[in-house]
C-alpha cells in the first residue's frame, strides 16, 4: 500500500464534493477512477497531491498517507516531487525547448549538472516512448510537437523528477485514438516502475489499462475492486448500470 486516502472529504466552499472517501492504492499497479461527470473524480485526484488547495475557496479534510507518512503535514512542494501529475490538455512550457521542458522539474529545483540533466532527459523521453521521435530536435520548442507527442512530453517531464506515484487526469481525452493507444501502451510499461492513478471517463480505457477500478458517484465511493471483477460481475447495481451505459 503506497498511497492511502482515509475519510477524504473535500469541497469548494459550498456543499461537499467528496464525502468521506476511503481508497488505497497498491504499489506498481494502475488504478482507474471512473464515474459520471461531476462525481468528484478530478477533485479527488487533485487532493492526492494537494493541488486542490490552490483553487480559491477549496476545502479538504482528510488523512492521506504516502508510505505511511501524513501528507497534510508535509511541505506540499516536496509532496509533489513524489506524487506527480499529468493533466487533461497537454501543457508544455511555451518558452522552453523540448529538452528544457523535460528537464524543467530538475532545473527549477536546482540541478545544474549538464551531463546528469542530459541523462535524465533521455531516460524520461525513452520511458515516455518519445525519444526516437525527438532525439534529433531536442532544441526545438516544446509546442512544435503534435498533440499526442506533447502529452508524451508532459509525461516525460513528470517522470524526470522520479516520482513514486503518477496521477493522470483524463490524459487522453484531448487526443485521437492512435495517440491514445500509444499512451495506454506506455502506461502499461511505466507501471513496472511506479504506481499510477488514472481518472478517465472512457470505461473501455479503464478496462484495458487498469488493475483495479474505483467507481465514484456523487462524491461517494460506490465500489472498488479488481478491474476484471468490476467489468464482469460488479457487486453494486449502480456500478452495473453505469458500466452498461444505462446512465451517466
Amino acid at each position: 500500500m503506497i498511497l492511502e486516502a482515509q475519510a477524504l472529504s473535500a469541497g469548494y466552499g459550498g456543499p461537499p464534493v467528496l464525502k468521506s472517501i476511503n481508497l488505497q492504492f497498491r504499489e506498481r499497479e494502475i488504478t482507474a477512477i471512473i464515474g459520471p461527470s461531476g462525481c468528484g473524480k478530478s477533485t479527488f485526484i487533485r487532493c492526492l497531491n494537494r493541488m486542490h488547495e490552490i483553487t480559491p475557496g477549496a476545502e479538504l479534510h482528510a488523512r492521506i498517507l504516502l508510505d505511511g507518512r501524513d501528507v497534510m503535514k508535509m511541505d506540499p512542494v516536496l509532496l509533489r516531487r513524489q506524487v506527480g501529475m499529468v493533466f487533461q490538455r497537454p501543457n508544455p512550457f511555451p518558452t522552453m525547448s523540448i529538452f528544457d521542458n523535460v528537464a524543467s522539474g530538475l532545473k527549477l529545483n536546482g540541478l545544474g549538472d549538464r551531463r546528469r540533466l542530459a541523462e535524465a532527459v533521455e531516460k524520461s523521453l525513452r520511458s515516455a516512448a518519445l525519444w526516437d521521435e525527438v532525439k534529433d530536435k531536442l532544441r526545438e520548442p516544446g509546442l512544435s510537437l503534435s498533440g499526442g507527442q506533447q502529452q508524451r512530453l508532459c509525461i516525460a517531464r513528470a517522470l524526470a523528477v522520479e516520482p513514486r506515484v503518477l496521477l493522470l487526469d483524463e490524459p487522453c481525452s484531448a487526443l485521437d485514438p492512435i495517440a491514445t493507444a500509444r499512451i495506454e501502451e506506455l502506461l502499461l510499461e511505466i507501471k513496472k516502475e511506479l504506481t499510477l492513478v488514472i481518472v478517465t471517463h472512457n470505461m473501455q480505457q479503464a478496462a484495458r489499462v487498469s488493475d483495479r477500478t474505483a467507481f465514484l458517484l456523487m462524491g461517494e465511493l460506490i465500489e472498488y475492486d479488481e478491474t476484471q471483477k468490476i467489468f464482469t460481475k460488479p457487486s453494486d447495481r449502480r456500478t452495473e448500470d453505469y458500466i452498461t451505459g444505462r446512465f451517466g
Partner: protein
Amino acid sequence: MIKRHFDDDLEALRARLLHMGELCEEMIQFAVRIISERKPGLIDEVSSREHSVNDLHIEIDDRALKLIALHQPAAGDLRLITAALKINSDLERVGDQAVNIAETGVFLSREPVMKLYDIPRMVEVASSMLRHSLESFARKDVELAREVIGRDDEEDRLKSQTFNELLGLMQSDASTIKRAMDMILIARNLERIADHATNIAEDVVFMVLGKDIRHFKAS
C-alpha cells in the same frame, strides 16, 4: 435510466434462443412418438424442425458476435451474451440427438414390437429437464436451474438401469439383440440430452450470479 437500442438487440437474442429451445423440445416429442406410436412418418416433422434449428444455430452465433464486436458489452450484458453462445451450442447438439432418436426409432418401427423398459421415464426426465432449463433462462431463475442440475444423477441412474436390463435381455434371447442395441442407443441419446440441459442450467447460474459452478458437485 437511458433506454438503449442495445436492449432491444439483447431481447431479440433471448427470444431467438428460446424459440430454438421450443423447436428442440418439439423434435424430441415427435422422435419419441415414432417409437411409442410406431409412426415412422413423423420423421418429416423432425427433419423440418432440424433445418430451422440449424439455421438458428448460425443466426444466433452471428447476432452474438455482432453485439460483442459493436457494443463492447460489460458485466450482466456480457454474461448474457456468452451464456447465449454456449446455450446455442448445447441446443444444436440436443437437436442432433433428437434426430438420432428419430432415425433409430424408424428402424425400430419396422421390427417387431419391443418392451420399452425405462425409456418413457427417461424421456420424461430429459424433456422436463430441458424445458425447465430453458424456463430458468427465460426467467433468470437460479433455483429452477439448480433443480435441473440436481436431476442429472437421476437420468444417469435410469440409463444404467436400462442398460443392465437390456443386456440381460440380449443374453437370454439372441433374436432381440438388434432391437436391444437400438434401444441402448436411444437411452444414450436421452442421457446426452439431459447432460446438455444440465450445461444450460449451469450457464444460467453463471449468467445470473457470475459464479461458475461447473465441474464440481453442486451442493
